[in-house]
């Protein structure tokens, strides 16, 4: 089965707008899903720089889906949905 990939943007904008508080995902996700999910903090995904999109930061990518204004709960729900489909 293909793994779900979770990329938490740790670029400066995302970090300031909230991904500082998403770092806990990097601990929580492996505990919860074991090796079914790959999670990592990544440099700027480039989603904030277009127009005024900083206000929707922090961004997290779950596979190819972009989660805006990400929270731990939103990300976990997205992972659950992916795993349900696979």
């Amino acid at each position: 089965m293909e793994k779900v990939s979770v990329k938490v943007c740790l670029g400066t904008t995302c970090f300031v707008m909230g991904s500082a508080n998403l770092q806990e995902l990097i601990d929580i996700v492996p505990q919860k899903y074991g090796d079914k999910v790959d999670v990592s903090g990544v440099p700027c995904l480039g989603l904030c720089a277009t127009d005024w999109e900083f206000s929707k930061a922090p961004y997290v990518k779950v596979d190819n889906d972009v989660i805006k204004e990400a929270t731990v709960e939103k990300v976990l729900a997205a992972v659950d949905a992916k795993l349900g489909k696979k």
Partner: protein
Amino acid sequence: MAINTPPKQTSHLKREILVRLIKAYLSDNFEEATRMIPYDMRPKGSEVPYRCCIHKERAILRDRTIAGLGLSIENADDTELLSTLARKAEERTEIEKNPLTVLHTACQGCVPSRIYVTDLCQGCVARPCQSACKFGAIKVENGKSVIDPEKCKNCGMCAQVCPYQAIAKIIVPCENACPVGAIAKDENGLAQIDFDKCISCGKCVSACPFGAVHKKSQLIDILKAIKNNEKLVAMVAPAIFGQLPCTPQQLKDAILSLGFADVIEVAEGADITTKNEAAEFKERMEEGQKFMTTSCCAGYNELVEKHVPELKPFRSETKTPAYYTAEIVKKENPNAKTVFFSPCIAKRREATQNPNIDFVLNYDELGAWFVALNVQVTNFEGSDFRKESSAQARNFAVTGGVAGAVNSLLEDDEKAKPYIVDGLNKQSIRDLKKFAKNGVCEFGNLIEVMACPGGCLGGSNTINAYKPALKQLTAYVGESPEIKDVIKE
């Protein structure tokens, strides 16, 4: 509650406003761009995430923008346009003394703090609530307990004893968080800060779920100074090195890129504080004093001045790291303006009392500045600080760090026995009063006081969560030289 986790949505909102304000200031038309902020954030037809209607959303965003401009929300007339206020902010030459302001339109939601009997009350036979109440405030009517508000003293005993947990203690988060009773609802139900009592610790800012307490930002004053080509020197307190995922050297370059002439570590001053405080501790112990408290935390210093003056004889006379750093910087550059980069609000009060510190910028404001200019801190190569400060000085930001630093300069037979006050609250203030009254602290002879749990890294205006911030700062401390080698030079 975990250390320094302010409500995430309110800090997101506050930061977004700061970002927009900075962008507005740097645009062609600051006044008009400022006026548009509430409309840009809630354009026609947009979702109304929090309030009753789009108009109230905008009204509240307007008030938040006023705080971002560094003005008092209470004093701003409702009829004044944000554009007028933006001009006022740009034209002012002095910053406001009291660092906090309350947004009353956001504040009205809370019910007054009281004890409330819920529908879960079974009207039982035992009625422990009635017998537990020392004030005779509870009687049973129609099979339910009823509290007489005239007699109730909000002690909460009835809530504790109810076997059904049917009695709730309703709190007002800001009042509950304030360790000195400086914020309270007035007769109209709106929170008011009594600045004669307020120690600027910022706990109400973090506690309010509506984000109704704001700091008055000095961003506009700082941006203006840069625009006017004034020489600005950034003095960065050590907690900053835990805030963003980059190296201290990269952060220095990122700050320089904003228009600062130099970036100086406040740890330079912390080395001096440590040296003086260690000598002072030794002297006081030799004179027979039973204990001494530290003096570097601005929130604690305000507490002593306003509420516990009896602690003054026990508080170290040594100045804060910010004080020594600002003194050095001003001596070297008499024409420069200094900006203290701070994890907390309390340092704003210290700065107004120190002519060598011109402005204070909190870490969340620095973050907003980076966002506004789309600065990627990791894109900088990084350059060294002019002076290598010690591990002990850089560790001032962590609870226990100050006492540890002082001890590192004392000989084995002189070593202090530290007692750490890890966060000011009603209980720890009672303890401190007791130590002052008795002239002795049974738990130690060097009392380190930090207003925020965790130390400066737990400050209410930080960006990073506590654990990763601590990890990052500790790594920096680990590669720093010993204080004995630094102060020898």
